[in-house]
């Protein structure tokens, strides 16, 4: 396995794609073929199933480079699984097929998400050298002044970004609703969604660019300031303004998301209700406030919470805009920075704090989604 990957790694990148995808699809086809053929009744197929149960786990562990006793254990477990399947209530081969469908996903999820989550919880209690130090990492996080700035900034991000993106997105969705060229207008605001945070940050770096007053400005913002006779400002050096200017980038990206989702919700508002309100002599503002808003409330909440989660997790913007600017750190970025400084324990502590901050919002979001579905 390792040798194969090493060999593929030496090829030109574009050649690696067809090879690895081909190998993967061949493996997937093999699994589907087994699922298809092996569960059939008959002696021949029973033997095939038994062989598959024994050979596949053994082979898998061999490919991972295990020692022999581990391969042996895998083979024995495979045999036991064959017996379990043979005596299964749903008929021979049912569990075999089921495992064939589910095993790839479950193995990957267990290795890549379940185990790491618990490992990170544990790591957050260890020092960088791996000694158990209890909650010292968390004490460190909350006792350093620069970390408190990081936490304060994160809280601002979670509060400011969702509110502005949603408000602007909603206003825009309402304004362009049913207008001519609605699709085109939507694309204009939606387009930043396709741009990476790195790309977006570079775009905005040029907007905020600063040159000393005796030279021509090349950033739009300072260009406007000087056009109106002001002195150019070194925007990203201004605390606390710089944090908010970084938030603008995320607002710029997320407004499109809010707009599309809310626009779909607005189109779902029953026309009869709007017309009835119109007959009652209400004005546009009253109709918006009393008819539209209540009926898109679930969508509004989901948009707000989703963007809050995004604001908690985004780190690319702060990193790409330049870490040299004072007091702009946020948790998600601090976590990666510490990791790259090999401070795994403190980094894990930040990851856990991030998880704890995300958790309530996600649960609220999930419940809201469930409610929306029940109403439907």
């Amino acid at each position, binding site marked *: 396995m390792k040798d194969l990957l090493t060999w593929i790694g030496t090829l030109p990148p574009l050649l690696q794609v067809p090879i690895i995808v081909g190998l993967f699809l061949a493996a*997937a086809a093999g699994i589907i073929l087994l699922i298809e053929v092996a569960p059939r009744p008959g002696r021949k197929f029973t033997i095939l199933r038994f062989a598959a149960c024994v050979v596949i786990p053994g082979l898998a562990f061999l490919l991972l480079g295990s020692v022999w006793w581990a391969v042996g254990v895998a083979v024995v477990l495979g045999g036991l699984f064959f017996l379990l399947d043979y005596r299964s209530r749903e008929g021979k081969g049912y569990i075999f097929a089921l495992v064939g469908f589910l095993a790839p996903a479950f193995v990957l999820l267990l290795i890549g998400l379940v185990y790491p989550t618990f490992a990170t919880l544990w790591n957050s209690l260890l020092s960088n050298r791996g000694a158990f130090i209890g909650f010292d990492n968390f004490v460190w996080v909350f006792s350093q002044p620069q970390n408190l700035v990081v936490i304060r900034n994160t809280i601002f991000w979670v509060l400011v970004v969702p509110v502005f993106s949603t408000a602007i997105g909603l206003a825009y969705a309402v304004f362009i609703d049913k207008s001519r060229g609605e699709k085109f207008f939507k694309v204009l605001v939606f387009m930043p969604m396709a741009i990476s945070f790195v790309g977006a940050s570079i775009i905005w770096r040029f907007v905020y660019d600063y040159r000393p007053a005796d030279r021509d400005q090349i950033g739009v913002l300072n260009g406007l300031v000087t056009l109106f006779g002001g002195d150019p400002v070194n925007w990203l050096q201004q605390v606390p303004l710089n944090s908010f200017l970084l938030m603008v980038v995320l607002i710029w990206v997320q407004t499109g998301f809010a707009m599309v989702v809310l626009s779909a919700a607005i189109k779902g508002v029953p026309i009869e209700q709007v017309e009835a309100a119109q007959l009652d002599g209400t004005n546009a503002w009253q109709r918006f406030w009393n008819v539209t808003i209540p009926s898109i409330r679930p969508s509004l909440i989901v948009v707000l919470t989703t963007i809050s989660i995004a604001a908690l997790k985004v780190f690319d913007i702060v990193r790409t805009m330049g870490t040299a600017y004072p007091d702009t750190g946020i948790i998600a970025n601090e976590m990666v920075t510490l990791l790259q400084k090999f401070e795994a324990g403190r980094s894990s502590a930040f990851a856990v704090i991030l998880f704890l901050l995300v958790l309530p919002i996600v649960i609220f979001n999930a419940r809201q989604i469930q409610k929306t579905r029940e109403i439907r």
Partner: protein
Amino acid sequence: MTTSIVANPALPESAIKAATRRTKQRLTSRGATIASLVIAVLWTIPTIGLFLTSIRPEVDTLRTGWWQIFVNPTVTFENYGNVLFGRDSLLGPFINSIAISIPATVFPLVIASLAGYAFAWMKFKGRDALFVLVFALQIVPIQMALVPLLSLFSRGITIGDSVIYEGLRGAGLFSQVWIAHTIFALPLAIFLLHNFISEIPADVIEAARVDGASHGQIFFRIVVPLSLPAIASFAIFQFLWVWNDLLIALIFATGAAAPITRALAELTGEFGQNAELLPAGAFISILIPLVVFLALQRYFVRGLLAGSTKG
């Protein structure tokens, strides 16, 4: 990238269109028109500015703002030539991005559609609980998984002195990134595809079963062809997500495997150094997602409206 379940994806597009047509009219009022124009302009100018910067000669870019192009229109594609073929070319990272994104889109799609089928159409004990568990994994921020996964890749697993898994130890250029992206995509992919697959009418599946089709056949002959729209929208989603990702690239795509996002982020780090490559480089990195997005927007929006949180 984050998304969520919101509007009614079941509402056919034709119905929305009909309703729109019925009441098509001018923008609601003059104030609203102006406001929406202002927003549209504000949202477009930064990107246009970057594009114009990227096609101006370097000397001009350093001295005057991009809006001067309207006064003094000199256009050059030299910057693009430099970015692609010059010293410190970004062509390599650009190709790396392609080499990372395509497999990292195909892998989770196949694995998740298999699992999605089992969750939707096979009965087993604890199915619902297990599905909720998979859904719940979306809660875990990727940040939580990074450190242990990295050490798993580099050190493997050992019990005592016995090696269970030897680790990748840098084997293969992109293997770590592919695997990491595949794993982190799975919860959302399974959730999305399951929702779609489970809405295939039970009659269709039952009829096939009565005719003697096994699970493998049902999956291949019925479920996959019928779920193509969902597969397409997830594929676009995942492609954009992987292409635009920086976090996983920073941790798992080191050295020669660095994709363009990482290469650009590194350019912004070293102050002044090669900064002239930034506008054209950024624009090249934006180009592919933008084309994919504009060409397949319909599927993207559908995925957005039916999706959930990721990351």
